[in-house]
Structures are given as C-alpha cells and as structure tokens.
C-alpha cells in the first residue's frame, strides 16, 4: 500500500492532524429502522481521509443503507429512523450544528444508475456550484465545469458538445458526468453506491481508474458487489452481513486472510 504524501489544499478544511490518514467519518453503534424492521444492527466504522473504503456484502445486508446514512439521504425515506452517532470531522451529522443540505454539499454522492439531469452537460455540472453560490461570474463557472470534467476524465469526449443534453451520453459517460457533477461542488467525501453495476467492463475500468485518482483529493466510500473491484480500488474493506458489520480491515487482509468465516465464505463465493 502506497503512502499518500501529496495532500492537496483543496480538501483541507477543518482537518484534524491525526497521522497521515486522519479519520474523516466515524460511525458508532449506528442502527437504522425502516418502520418496525431493523436494517442495521449497530455499525461501528471509521472512514479514513483520502482513502477508498469499500463496503461489500450480499444483497440486503444494509451496505447501501449505511452509505445513505453518511449524507442523510435516508431522510427522504418515509418511516426511516437512524440511531447512534455518525460524525464528520468530529461533528454529529444528525446533530443541531449540521444541516442536511450543508452536509450533502460536503458529502457528495454517486448513484447506482447514472442519473444526469435532463439538461445540458454544462448545466449538469454547473447546477451544484450555482445553487451554492460557488462561482460569482461566468468565467469562474466555465473553469469549474472544465476542471470537474477533466478530473472525471470526460473533458476530451464532451468539450465540443457542452450544450448537448447529458442524457444523450453513453452509460459510462453518464456515470462519469455524475461523478463530475459530484466533485464540482468540492465535497470532502464522495459516496458511491455501486457506481459500475450498470456499466460494461471498459466503462467500469474507466471509473475504477478515476476512483484511484480521486482518492488524492477526496475521501471515498464505495458500495460494490464486485469483489475484484473492491480489491482493485480500495484500501480498506468492510464486510456487511444481515445488518451487521462483520469485519473491517485493510483490503489486502480481508481478501487474503479474513478472520470471520462468513467473510471467507462470501469472498470465496460460497454464498451471497
């Protein structure tokens, strides 16, 4: 595992000085209920800064639920109740000091199915900065759009058709557009919910490369069903099973030397 020495200034706000990889987010005994049904049974997890954390586990184990707790997307679901503590830079995200809208600007999200707005490519990227008042005039906005698209590795493909609808792109391009949209508001953490599940292997490889590059500037949490993908892109892996977090360790450890037999069973393909 390579040690990150280059930490760019863009991702620096309110960073605690705790080693090379500080703790960005913490979950303590997180329980989630959908009505009477309990989806998460007390999750404890630490997400380190500028690293990729992969959440793996069989369908319905609660990894997406957990991911959506991190930026309070579960707020929109009726009957959903979250207990326990989730902290971003030491601040409770469900606490009084953090507003859900503000939180989602700091913790961006990329969804399973590419979901560009039915607007132009430019407007897709510019929407977030516009509502947050990040760019004060046109040139600045153009700059943000260009930088975001470049970082998402989409610039060369779309630079001549920024005014065309984002929905006209291919699936892989749409997903990179969504990633560009997420990084346009300069979040600190990016959550990715199975970002490659709707893509072909070439597009997937593209996104995986992208994730590896983005790690320099952002903290990334990715849910994936693809074990090879988890092994390729992440430094830390957490295995979820039936609402429990069974095991969390360095990715290498999990895949070569899992401690729990359920983890072993899952990664060797015996169930899931």
């Amino acid at each position, binding site marked *: 595992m390579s040690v990150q020495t280059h930490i760019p200034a863009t991702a620096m706000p309110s960073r605690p000085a705790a080693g090379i990889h500080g703790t960005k987010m913490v979950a303590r005994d997180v329980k989630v209920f959908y009505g009477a049904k309990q989806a998460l049974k007390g999750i404890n997890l630490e997400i380190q800064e500028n690293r990729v954390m992969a959440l793996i586990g069989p369908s319905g184990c609660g990894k997406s639920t957990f991911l959506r707790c991190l*930026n309070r*997307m579960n707020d*929109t679901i*009726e009957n959903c109740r979250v207990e326990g503590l989730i902290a971003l830079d030491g601040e409770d995200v469900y606490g009084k000091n953090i507003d859900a*809208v*503000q939180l*989602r*600007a700091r913790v*961006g*999200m*990329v*969804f399973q*199915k590419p*979901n*560009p*707005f*039915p607007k132009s490519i430019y407007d897709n990227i510019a*929407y*977030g900065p516009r*509502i*947050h008042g990040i760019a004060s005039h046109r040139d600045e906005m153009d700059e943000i759009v260009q930088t975001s698209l470049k970082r998402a590795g989409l610039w060369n493909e779309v630079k001549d058709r920024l005014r065309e609808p984002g*929905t006209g792109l291919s699936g892989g391009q749409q997903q990179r557009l*969504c990633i560009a*949209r*997420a990084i*346009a*508001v300069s979040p600190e953490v990016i959550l990715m919910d199975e970002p490659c599940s709707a893509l072909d292997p070439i597009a997937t490889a593209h996104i995986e490369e992208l994730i590896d590059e983005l790690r320099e500037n952002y903290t990334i949490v990715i849910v994936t069903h693809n074990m090879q993908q988890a092994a390729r892109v992440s430094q830390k892996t957490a295995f979820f099973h039936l609402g429990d977090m069974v095991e969390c360790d360095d990715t290498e450890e999990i895949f070569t030397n899992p401690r729990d037999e359920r983890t072993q069973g899952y990664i060797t393909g015996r169930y899931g």
Partner: protein
Amino acid sequence: MSVAVTKSRYQSEEFSARLRRRYAAERRFRIAGMVAVGIASLMLVVLLGSIISKGYTAFWQAQIRLEVTLDKQQVEERNYTALLRQALYAQVPTATDRATRRSLNDLLSSGAPYELEAKVNANPSLVGTTQTVWVRADDEIDQFMKGFIRRDVPESERRLNDVKIAAIDALVANGSIRSTFNTTLFTAGDSREPEQAGILGAVVGSALTLVVTMLLSVPIGIAAAVYLEEFAPKNRWTDLIEVNINNLAAVPSIIFGLLGLAVFLGFFGLPRSAPLVGGLVMALMTLPVIIIASRVALKAVPPSIREAALGVGASPLQTVTHHVLPLALPGILTGTIIGMARALGETAPLLMIGMVAFIVDIPGGLTDSATAIPVQIYMWADSPERAFTERTSAAIMILLAFLILMNGLAVFLRKKFERRW
C-alpha cells in the same frame, strides 16, 4: 435426454394446435379492437355530421335590397321603419292594398331600421339622397330561402302566407334577395329575433369565466399537488385528504352550482349571473381534476432525479422547483387544459348561479351579467323559432371548435416540453 423430450414436445401436433389457438385468440382480440374503434369513429362521424348538416346554414343570412329615399323630415323624426317599408312596397308590384302591405311589413327584420339609422348617423351626408341598402330579412324569409319552409304545404299550416311568398318570388325575380355570410352570429349578443342573435356575448362570458377559473385553480391546484406529493408526510390525515380530493372529482357538477349559490351568492352576496361567480364555481369543480393530474405527473418523475438534486446539496424546495416541476410540467399542462376544457363545456353549475339569464349586452367585466356558450346552446335549443335550431347547431360547432383548439394546445404543449431521461 431432456433435450430430446423438449424437442418432441414443441414439435408435436398438440403443440402446434395450441399455437394455432393462441394466434386465433390474438386475431380475435385484434378484430374486436378494430370493431370497437370503428364503432366509436362511426358515432363521432354521425354526431359531427348531424351537427354540421343542421348547423351550417346558420352561417348564411338572407338580405333584401331596398332603394331607400332618405327623406329629410322622416330622418329627423327617426322614422326609419316607414322609410324601409316604402322602399319595400316600391319593389313589390303586388303591394297595392293595405292588407298586402301589412303582410309585407314582416319581411324585414325588426332590427333593419336600427341598421339604417346607424348607417345614416355614420354618414349624415346621405340624407336627402336615394341609397341602395341591403338589410337583413326576417328569420322566416331566411328559412324559406333555405328551403326549411315548404311552399307545397297548405297555406293554413305554413308560417308564410301566399301573399308573402308571392312578394319573395317577385324580389327573387329582380335580384333583390341575396344570401351573405352571417356576421351577426359572431358580433352580436343574444336576441329574441333569430336573425339578430349572436354568440359573442356567450363567448365573452365563457372567456371571462375561464380566466377566473384558471387564475384560481391552476396555482392553487399545482401548489396543493406539489405539497401533497413532495412534502406532506404520509399519514392518516393526508390519506383522508387524498380520498376526499378523489371523491370531489366525481361529484356531479350541479352540486358545485348549489354550493356556489349558497356560499358565493347567499353568504358573500356576490352578484347573480356574473362571470366572477361562474369562475369561482368552475374553479372549485376543476381543482380536484388539476390536483389529481398534477400529482400523477409529479409521481411520474423518476426518483433518481430527486436523489441527484438532493445529492449535490439542493434543498427540497430547490429540488422541486428546479428539477421535478419542470419535468412534470407537460403532464400538469395537459391535465390543466383538459380540466379547463371541461369547465368550458359545463352548464349545470352555471344554471344554479343565474348565468342562464337572457342577456343581450356583451359583458364588459367580471361582475356584469353574462351567460356562457353551453348555456346559450341550452337556451337556443329551447326556443321555438325554426331559425334557432340551426343556430343551436352553429353554437355547438363553435363550442366544439374551442374545445378542439384547447385539446390541440394540450397535445402541442406536451409534445413541445416532453423530455426524455
């Protein structure tokens, strides 16, 4: 082994018989569908055909040419009726005795003197000269010219006596009767005399009513739909509200008329027969339709768009106004326009609040007495004169034209704003 079994099963005689039955069922279904569409189209053709064949004659009106000598003294005494009659007697050679002349008086529309007066007032230099004027014929002459009053019927059972028919024949012989486009139908208000009756008063009344309806029901309806669909918690109260809205959409319109009568006229004391009250009642009636259509349109917006917007930090209101509402707009517009079209064709509630009155003047404001196109149709259909029959059909055609226009607009807007995602 299993392959062999499968193969034989799908190639057996029994299977091909089953396949034939499946195709036969499909053919039957398709034929039944085509028959249904055929019957529906036939009905439509019969309906439109009967309306148009009965009503197209209303767009034409008989006029009589008269050589009027505008005698100065008569004009000063505003005795235009006498002037016209004298000109008419001069045109008809049989008009020698009093009885015939009195009979001939009915040939001219009772509105003809006013037409002449208006012409003279507009151009006073005409006084003292002899002018050729075309004046409207009475509705019975008009009907006779269109062939609706037949001359082979015995005189006692005919609306026109032999003297009048002889006079008409004489006028036709010297080219003094013509048929022109009936502009009165589009430029006048209602009248007891068919040849002077027009639809404009009802059209303006309908337009004023619809403006009130639209200004009230569209913003309230869309706001209610957005709140219920996007913000309201799902609990027993919102369920109750939803059930009630759905029920309101099914309430007979006359009930809304009674409500308007009791509340707007009885309690608030608003003027009777006013487009303002008509619009209020129609708004109540249209609201549930707009709310339901808007909610369906909002529901059809994929949740992924909401998540995308929330995911970049848009507030719930921004999510709705920037993304969800624009995407739902085509559906909302369609629902709204169809609701408006329904309001335009509605009669019953207007009867309850007095918009069924006989009103000659074109309404100039929201509180003037007015009527609406469907009510005008209802009143003309009730009139005994033969000429009102064709005018009823003509009014129906005008109403249908407005409805087709509105529905066409709905389709156009939907196509224009429709977006893929």
